[in-house]
């Protein structure tokens, strides 16, 4: 059987529905953060109705020739009535300016949040902007006997993302969700090599930080009749496509069964050269635990790896980090964890820092800045203690823990302060 995508022609998915994307088998690193051992595909699609032709997404600019050759094999530019942009990242919108030049009559359908991105993308092209229509869930376009219905699925993985459902055929053009960086010219999930590792890897690195949004999207998709899921990267899923939706639900559901669900959870991470920062951590934990309603766990960063701690952090409500200061900085195991959190959502969690130091004690403030940078809230000023904590200083650590617990459990007394008192 010939390899589906080894020709310049479009590849039929269903009568009047074609793949017109491009293969990029030599790509090894995508968006800096993702590896791929066999490249990726940029999937674009054409849907033909009785009164209109829709192009769904385009490809990375450097692959425009492949896209246009395939597109021309199934449609004339003058026939194109509709361009759907499920996601405006340049790997899907790279050929858009040229497509708009060739099919200026086409109306562009995109999510509300995509409008400003569209303007920014088309800046270099200049000229009159295309006619574009912001759409949301249940809006639709009639192509004559065929209906494209939109699903508002933001933050998967950009604010602008949406899915488009071809109602009569049960085909979901899903954008980046259900995609992966896997290049196999056989194109279809029932014909390509085993790509499950790539599907999981893509979810873990691209979708995982947005798992609440994944669950919202899955809830919109689950009731649909599905014959095919046509994502924007990787194999087209036509063998039991619902399995992939189910897998997304599994992946987005909290990974660690949390028996403390009714309580708030505080993780206290520390690393300690001489036991001083450890004693601070223990006192902080004891103070938080004593208030009640908070389940506190202590972890020595020397005894684990960033990946495991990332899983723990994803589920926790609050995080405290303790580090000594060495040569004016927090120590590397702390930074290893704090630089590994882009794959999970930590926004809005409670954060705090503490640490013993011998000379200048910069670590605490540096950690606080990083926590704020990660969009944690840091409502209680961290504690720096010179060398060995005495009884009073350990009491201050317990107090820090108690204050964190009060914030976590909503048992705060309203304070009135003057801005001038704030550092």
């Amino acid at each position, binding site marked *: 059987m010939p390899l589906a995508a080894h020709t310049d022609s479009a590849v039929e998915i269903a009568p009047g529905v074609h793949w017109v994307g491009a293969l990029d088998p030599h790509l090894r690193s995508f968006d800096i953060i993702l590896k791929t051992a066999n490249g990726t595909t940029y999937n674009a699609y054409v849907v033909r109705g009785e009164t209109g032709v829709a192009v769904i997404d385009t490809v990375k600019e450097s692959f425009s020739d492949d896209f246009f050759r395939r597109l021309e094999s199934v449609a004339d530019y003058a026939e194109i009535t509709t361009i759907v942009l499920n996601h405006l990242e340049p790997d899907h919108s790279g050929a858009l300016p040229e497509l708009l030049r060739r099919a200026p009559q086409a109306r562009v359908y995109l999510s509300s949040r995509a409008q400003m991105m569209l303007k920014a993308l088309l800046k270099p092209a200049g000229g009159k902007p295309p006619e574009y229509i912001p759409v949301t869930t249940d809006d639709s376009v009639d192509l004559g006997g065929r209906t494209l219905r939109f699903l508002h699925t933001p933050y998967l993985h950009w604010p602008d993302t949406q899915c488009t459902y071809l109602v009569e055929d049960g085909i979901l053009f899903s954008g980046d969700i259900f995609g992966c960086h896997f290049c196999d010219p056989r194109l279809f999930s029932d014909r390509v090599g085993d790509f499950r590792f790539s599907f999981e890897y893509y979810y873990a690195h691209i979708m995982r930080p947005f798992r609440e949004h994944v669950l919202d999207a899955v809830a919109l998709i689950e009731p649909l009749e599905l014959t095919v899921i046509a994502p924007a990267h990787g194999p087209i899923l036509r063998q039991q496509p619902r399995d992939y939706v189910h897998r997304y639900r599994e992946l987005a559901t909290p990974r660690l069964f949390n028996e403390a669900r009714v309580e708030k959870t505080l993780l206290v991470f520390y690393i300690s050269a001489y036991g001083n920062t450890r004693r601070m951590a223990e006192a902080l934990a004891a103070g938080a635990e004593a208030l009640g309603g908070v389940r506190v766990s202590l972890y020595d960063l020397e005894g684990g790896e960033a990946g495991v701690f990332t899983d723990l952090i994803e589920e926790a409500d609050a995080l405290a980090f303790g580090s000594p200061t060495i040569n004016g900085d927090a120590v590397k195991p702390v930074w290893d964890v704090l630089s590994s959190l882009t794959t999970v959502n930590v926004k809005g969690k409670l954060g705090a820092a503490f640490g013993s130091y011998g000379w200048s004690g910069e670590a605490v403030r540096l950690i606080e800045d990083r926590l704020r940078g990660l*969009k944690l809230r840091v409502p209680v000023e961290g504690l720096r203690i010179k060398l060995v904590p005495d009884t009073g200083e350990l009491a201050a650590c317990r107090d820090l823990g108690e204050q964190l617990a009060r914030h976590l459990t909503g048992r705060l007394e309203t*304070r*009135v*302060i003057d801005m001038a008192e704030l550092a």
Partner: protein
Amino acid sequence: MPKAKVTFEDIGVAVTVPAGTRLIEVSEKVGAGITYGCREGECCTCLTKVVSGGENLAPPSVLEDQVLKDNMAPRGHRLACQAQILGGEIVVKPA
């Protein structure tokens, strides 16, 4: 200088501030749950619900208005990086 009082409901902290202060200048310092992205009124990360006293904030600029609209922000919401406190009492919390 005229003073105003802004209350961050999520953390139970009220701060007296000079008129003209932007919410961003106070909320981070007190550790309120409002989080920031671009800090330039574009990304909508700092969307904030104004629980009361919205009239005590300077009206949104054309840019802020557009960003609120593009992001389908409900009524009574502002961008904390843009909203400037004029006086009186204001109560806010993260959106």
